């Protein structure tokens, strides 16, 4: 996955993501596609979650999935999550859960609770940073005010370990980017989607920060690859959400 938040010169925030899924889940040698990725694409939907007839928040989901991977609360905040791979991963958390330890929270259910209950960027950040999780994760959270953007890196099974990396900390001042690796480490050479994305962001420049600029970025390989199912674009201050299915025709990276 790739998640990115940019701020234009007038302080407006734009949050976008590519959702990549299906690595090693069946390679189709004829069509050069991943089987599960291809099966996921037709069930991508945009959802408007309402209470008493009014929009509470909006999200992008796969049909049948009740958690949240991409969502936006109008005028308040936007949230995406990227997968964090770890040997101490969710599988161990599931075993603990089966053995009766229910002190942790499932990732997709936490994000749903945040979208339903958090009333501000700050409250959302606190919930995402301090709730004990069953699996490791990266949460990319954007607000509605200048500078309100961060990546929260979480381990499994602890509620005191969150690394909160803000846009100001990132050294880039007007953007923050997360793929599937800890920001304080170099990404591996075989999956470096960070360096090309930063290069394209710098080429775009803050003056061109916009929904269309982010779509261009996320349509560029290797951030667009054979695992990419959709690109979601969000602008919290005007309640704008657009989602497009993505396809990567050959020649294209398998991940």
């Amino acid at each position, binding site marked *: 996955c790739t998640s990115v938040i940019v701020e234009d010169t007038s302080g407006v925030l734009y949050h976008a993501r590519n959702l990549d899924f299906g690595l090693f889940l069946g390679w189709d040698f004829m069509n050069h596609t991943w089987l599960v990725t291809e099966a996921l694409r037709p069930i991508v939907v945009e959802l408007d979650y309402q209470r008493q007839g009014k929009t509470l928040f909006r999200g992008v989901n796969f049909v049948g999935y009740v*958690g949240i991977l991409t969502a936006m609360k109008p005028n308040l905040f936007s949230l995406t999550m990227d997968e964090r791979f770890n040997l101490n991963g969710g599988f161990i958390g599931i075993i603990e859960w089966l053995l009766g330890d229910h002190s942790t929270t499932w990732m997709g259910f936490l994000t749903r609770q945040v979208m339903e209950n958090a009333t501000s960027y700050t409250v959302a950040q606190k919930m995402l940073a301090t709730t004990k999780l069953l699996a490791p994760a990266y949460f990319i959270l954007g607000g509605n005010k200048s500078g309100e953007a961060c990546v929260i890196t979480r381990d499994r099974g602890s509620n005191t370990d969150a690394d909160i990396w803000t846009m100001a900390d990132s050294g880039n001042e007007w953007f923050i980017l997360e793929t599937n690796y800890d920001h304080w480490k170099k990404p591996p050479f075989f999956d*470096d989607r960070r360096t090309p994305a930063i290069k394209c962001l710098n080429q775009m420049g803050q003056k061109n920060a916009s929904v269309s600029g982010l779509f261009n970025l996320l349509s560029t390989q290797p951030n667009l690859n054979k695992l990419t199912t959709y690109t979601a674009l969000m602008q919290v201050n005007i309640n704008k959400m657009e989602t497009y299915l993505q396809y990567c025709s050959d020649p294209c990276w398998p991940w």
Partner: protein
Amino acid sequence: ESQLPPTGKCKNGAYPPESSRKVPKYVINLDLPPEQRWTKLVTENKQGLYNLLAAIRNLTNVIFHGKLFILIDKYMPLIVNTLPYPFGEEIAGIANATGIPMGEVALFNLFYEIFTV
């Protein structure tokens, strides 16, 4: 080489893409009982969900010869009963509306946790 996109340049002019790539929109009414919230969405899209689960079943059959899904159908519903409100009820509602075994709907919802290894 990793300093550059493999094409050597950043894409321009990709936005807006053709409208056929826009995804459909639905309303989820959170005032409904959890068992009913997803009924319209999953009923209208159940073929896609069947196709996804069939793809996973075919993949796992290569290694587990069908036994994995027998275990999933038998034991995953036990996890559903332990999930916090309203998630277990929502998963049960999806299973009821689509006719897909509850264990398989649960598997789909717990995919993230499983694949973080």
